[in-house]
């Protein structure tokens, strides 16, 4: 369970995230939609404890991210924007490092490593340095890292960015397979992805939460029945900012 209450982040005069509140329950795959600079990544960085909110609270698995950061971080897997990792490490070395930090017990460790390596098809590049990998492989290494400890909560910032259509499909299948009892939050600006994997979508723009509904119900708001029309209408239309929050 993720509970976000009146979350704001300001940088001087600029408000990146403006008083956002919502909860996410197990079984939900939440798509975080918004134009570039809308505050998607900033919100995710606050959920994962990388950024400290200016005001408001985030609780993950019952732990306040600011007050009990370690407990909250332990139950989360996070793929930061751009899938950063340690370029000079081999894929195997990097995943072993993550397993060490996550303190996976010896009997689970081997099984978990094998599982993510197989799921993300990393078997062929295990001994390669991460800096020599293609963008798609790096993204998959980032995903493997996030999944390694089989977390209850997954926060994925643009998980399919830079992947080819086949790889996109694989990652979506992967997310769908895990969706049943986990909480998954993905940010994206690819709208068809929301249709493919999410059962809930939040649209934010200018740091404010503008819509919160199922993708189907959102799409139905436009006469055309297309999600991108609704997206454009909400984030750029005259009504942007005043659009009623539909929960």
């Amino acid at each position, binding site marked *: 369970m993720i509970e976000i209450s009146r979350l704001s982040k300001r940088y001087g005069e600029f408000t990146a995230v403006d008083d956002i509140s919502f909860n996410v329950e197990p079984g939900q795959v939440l798509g975080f939609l918004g134009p570039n600079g809308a505050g998607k990544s900033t919100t995710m960085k606050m959920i994962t404890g990388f950024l400290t909110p200016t005001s408001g609270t985030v609780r993950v698995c019952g732990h306040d991210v600011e007050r009990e950061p370690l407990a909250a971080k332990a139950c989360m897997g996070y793929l930061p924007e751009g899938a950063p990792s340690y370029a*000079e490490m081999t894929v195997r070395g990097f995943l072993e490092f993550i397993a060490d930090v996550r303190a996976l017990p010896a009997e689970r460790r081997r099984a978990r490593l094998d599982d993510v390596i197989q799921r993300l098809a990393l078997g062929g590049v295990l001994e390669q340095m991460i800096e020599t990998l293609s963008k798609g492989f790096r993204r998959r290494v980032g995903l493997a890292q996030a999944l390694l400890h089989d977390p209850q909560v997954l926060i994925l910032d643009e998980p399919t960015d830079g992947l080819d259509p086949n790889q996109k499909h694989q990652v979506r299948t992967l997310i769908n397979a895990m969706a049943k009892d986990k909480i998954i939050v993905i940010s994206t600006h690819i709208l068809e992805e929301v249709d493919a994997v999410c059962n809930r979508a939040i649209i934010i723009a200018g740091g404010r939460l503008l819509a919160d509904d199922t993708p189907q119900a959102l799409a139905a708001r436009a006469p055309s029945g297309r999600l991108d029309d609704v997206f454009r209408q909400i984030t750029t239309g005259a009504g942007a900012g005043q659009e009623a929050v539909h929960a």
Partner: protein
Amino acid sequence: MRNVAVVFRREFASYFATPLAFVFIVIFLVLAGAFAFYLGGFYERGQADLAPFFNYHPWLYLFLIPALSMRLWAEERKSGSIELLMTLPVTTAQAVVGKYLAAWAFSGLALALTFPLWITVNYLGEPDNGAILAAYIGSFLMAGGFLAIGACLSAATRNQVIAFIFTVVICFGFLLSGFGMVLGLFEGWAPQPVIDAIASLSFLTHFGSISKGVIDVRDLLYFGTLIAVWLAANAIVLDMKKAD
């Protein structure tokens, strides 16, 4: 403790994943030897000690340690891996200490590899090995001081060159404050306690007294405090600036 060890191991191994370790160690050894033999007159002095070798360590460290420390945090910030590290279940303090200790251990390794010089001096004469050991400890502590300053400044920027330059400047200040020339500026008008305080801030003063073979608690305390203060500053800077 366990997390510190995990961060330490990753960081220490990362030196050897690139030519950095090799280049640093070779240059350190070549320069340390060159200073001892050519500038220090190791043979010409006709004395069986390593003073000409250790005397140049502060100046050697002034340029080599910032080269080692500049990447500590600036690189993590530049590549974005800091976001990964800080969202893993590791506290800021554990990350700061783990990475710092890895850099310190690496500089200790480079220092330890100067052992042929110690063998040489023992072959040529009968040096005071206790004093040599003390000087090695002093040199290692001094490297730790330089590194703590460099680690903190590396966290303040994502540009390694800027981190390098600032570290050299600040370390230079810490060296100079014990220099006769600088202290001379204060003599005559400043009260003696002030002059002593300025001199006591210097690496040279404390390294000098340890390398004479006397390990004084005050010198240990000086380096311990210096390292602790700069690492605490490192953690604060990191929390403030990590997302910039």
